[in-house]
C-alpha cells in the first residue's frame, strides 16, 4: 500500500530527472551537430577540462555565490535577532519579505536600471559624497560581480530572514525568560542560548539557499550576459551558452554532467545529515 501511494510521484520525478540525466551523460560522449551524432569518446571532457571559460564559470559561481551567501546570512541573522520578539515588527514583517515576492527577472531588470541604465546608484553615492563620478558598474570585473551579488542579496536575504525569525520564535520563551531573571543580557542570551539551539535550522537554510545560489541564471542572463570578458558567467550560464547559443549540445552535456557530480557529492554530504524523512 505505501509503495502504491508514493509510486506516482517517484515515477514522475524519474521521468523528469533521471531520464534527462542519463540522456545528458549519453549525449556527452558525442559530437552533436543538429541531428548528426558522431561518437566522440572522452573528447568533450578533454576539451572541457582544458577550457578556461569552464573553469572561470565554476570559479565565478563559487566566488559570487559565497560572497552573496555570507552577506545574506549575516544580515538575515542580525535582523532576525533584533526582530523576533518585537511586537512592532511582527505586524510589519511583510515589508521585510517584499523583495522575495518579485519575479527574479523583474528584480534583475530593476537593479540593471538602478546600477547601469539610469545610474541611480552612482547618483545617490555621489550625492552623499562617497564617489566623485559615475561608476561604470557593468564594465569592470568586480563592480559587475558586485551588481549581481547585490541583486541576489536584495531578493533572497528575506528567505533566510523569515526562516530564522520562525526558528527563533519557535523556541521556548521560558528558557530565555529564566536566563533573563538570572541577569543575562539579551545579547548573551542570543549568543549562548538561542543561537546554539537553532544551529540545525541554520544549516538547513544555508543548504537550500546555497543550492539555489549556485544555479544563478536569470540575473546573469538579464543584467550582464556574462560580461565583462566572462567575469560574471556562472556555470548555468556556461551550459546555456554552449547548448543554445553555439549549439554544441554534446559539449554542454559534458559540463552538465560535471555539475551533476558536484551536486550529488554536496547533496550526499550535507543533505542527509540535516533532513529526516520520517518518524524514527
Amino acid at each position, binding site marked *: 500500500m505505501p509503495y502504491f501511494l508514493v509510486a506516482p510521484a517517484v515515477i514522475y520525478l524519474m521521468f523528469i530527472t533521471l531520464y534527462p540525466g542519463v540522456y545528458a551523460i549519453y549525449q556527452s560522449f558525442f559530437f552533436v551537430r543538429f541531428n548528426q551524432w558522431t561518437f566522440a569518446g572522452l573528447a568533450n571532457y578533454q576539451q572541457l577540462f582544458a577550457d578556461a571559460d569552464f573553469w572561470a564559470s565554476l570559479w565565478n559561481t563559487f566566488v559570487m555565490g559565497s560572497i552573496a551567501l555570507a552577506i545574506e546570512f549575516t544580515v538575515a541573522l542580525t535582523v532576525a535577532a533584533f526582530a523576533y520578539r518585537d511586537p512592532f515588527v511582527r505586524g*510589519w514583517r511583510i515589508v521585510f519579505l517584499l523583495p522575495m*515576492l518579485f519575479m527574479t527577472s523583474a528584480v534583475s531588470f530593476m537593479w540593471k*536600471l538602478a546600477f547601469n541604465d539610469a545610474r541611480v546608484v552612482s547618483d545617490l553615492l555621489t550625492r552623499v559624497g562617497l564617489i566623485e563620478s559615475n561608476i561604470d558598474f557593468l564594465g569592470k570585473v568586480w563592480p559587475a560581480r558586485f551588481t549581481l551579488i547585490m541583486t541576489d542579496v536584495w531578493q533572497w536575504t528575506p528567505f533566510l530572514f523569515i526562516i530564522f525569525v520562525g526558528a527563533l520564535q519557535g523556541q521556548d520563551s521560558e528558557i530565555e525568560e529564566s536566563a533573563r531573571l538570572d541577569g543575562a543580557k539579551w545579547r548573551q542570551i542570543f549568543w549562548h542560548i538561542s543561537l546554539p539551539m537553532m544551529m540545525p535550522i541554520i544549516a538547513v537554510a544555508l543548504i537550500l539557499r546555497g543550492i539555489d545560489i549556485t544555479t544563478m541564471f536569470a540575473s546573469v542572463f538579464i543584467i550582464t550576459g556574462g560580461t565583462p570578458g566572462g567575469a560574471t558567467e556562472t556555470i548555468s550560464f556556461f551550459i546555456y551558452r554552449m547548448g543554445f547559443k553555439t549549439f554544441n549540445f554534446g559539449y554542454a552535456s559534458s559540463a552538465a554532467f560535471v555539475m*551533476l557530480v558536484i551536486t550529488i557529492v554536496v547533496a550526499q554530504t550535507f543533505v542527509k545529515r540535516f533532513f529526516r524523512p520520517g518518524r524514527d
Partner: protein
Amino acid sequence: MAMKRRRLGRFTNYFVRYLVLGSWGVFCAAPVLWFLSIGLRPRVEIISPQPIYWPTFTLDAWNMIWSVWPMASYLRNSLLAIAGSIVIDLVLAIPAAYSLARYKYRFRDDIGFYILSTRMMAPAIVAIPIFFLFKNLGLLDTVWALMLIYAAVNLSLVTWIIRSYMLDISYEIEDAARMDGATDLRILWSIIIPISAPGIVTATVIAAIFAINEFLFTLLLSSTKNAYTLSVALANFTGGSDGVIYNAIALVAFIAFVPMVLLVLVIQRHLSRGLTMGAVKG
C-alpha cells in the same frame, strides 16, 4: 549612577535595534516603491543624464502593455501553467506525503531522499535533455510543457511540506477510524487531508512563488506568446531599437507581485516552516 547607566544602555539598545530594523526595512521597501514609480512614468524620464526623482505620472505604459504587447496572453499562460502545475503536484504529493509520513517500510527513507534530492538539481543540468524531450513530445511552446515542468520542479518541495504537517497528526485518530473499519484511502481523504490543510495551503503558495519565478526552463521551452509567461516575457520588452522598455517591465512586475503579496499574507505564520520544507516548527 548604576541605574542611570542601565537606562542609558537600554536606550542605546532600542536605538540600535530600530536603526538596524529601520534601515533594513527601507532597503527592502524603497526599491519597490521606486520601481512602482518607474511603471507610472513616461519613458523619457526614466533614462536621462541625471536621474529624475520627482516623477510626472502617466498611464502610458499601462495602456501600452495591453494594446501593443499581448499582455493578456502572458497573464493567461502564467496562470494556467502555475495552476495546472499545482494541481498535478497535489495529486501526486498528497498520497506520497501520506505514505512517507504514516507508514514504515523498506526504502522509505531512500525514497524520501530521492524526492528531496530532485530539489537540489540545477535546472541547467537537465535543460538540454528536457528541451529535446518536449520537442519529441511535440509540446514545445505550449502551456502544457510549462505545467509539467513546473510540477516537476516543485514536487519535492510540496511533498516534503505536506509530509511535515502529516507527521504532526496523532496516531490515535487514525487508529480509531481504522477500528471503525475505514480503509487507508478513506482515512487519508476524510481525516488526514482536512487536518493537514494548512500544510497543503502553505505548499501551494510556496509552489506558486517558485513557479512564477521560474526562468531557465520557460526561456527554453517557450518561443512565442503561445507560452511566454510573465517572467520570461519581461526579457522581451526590449523593443528593438528603443532599448529596454522599463516602465512596461515595472508594471508587469507589479501585476505578478500583488497576488503574491496577498497569498503570502494568508500563510505568513507558516512561511518559515514551508520554506525549510518542515524543518522549522514555527
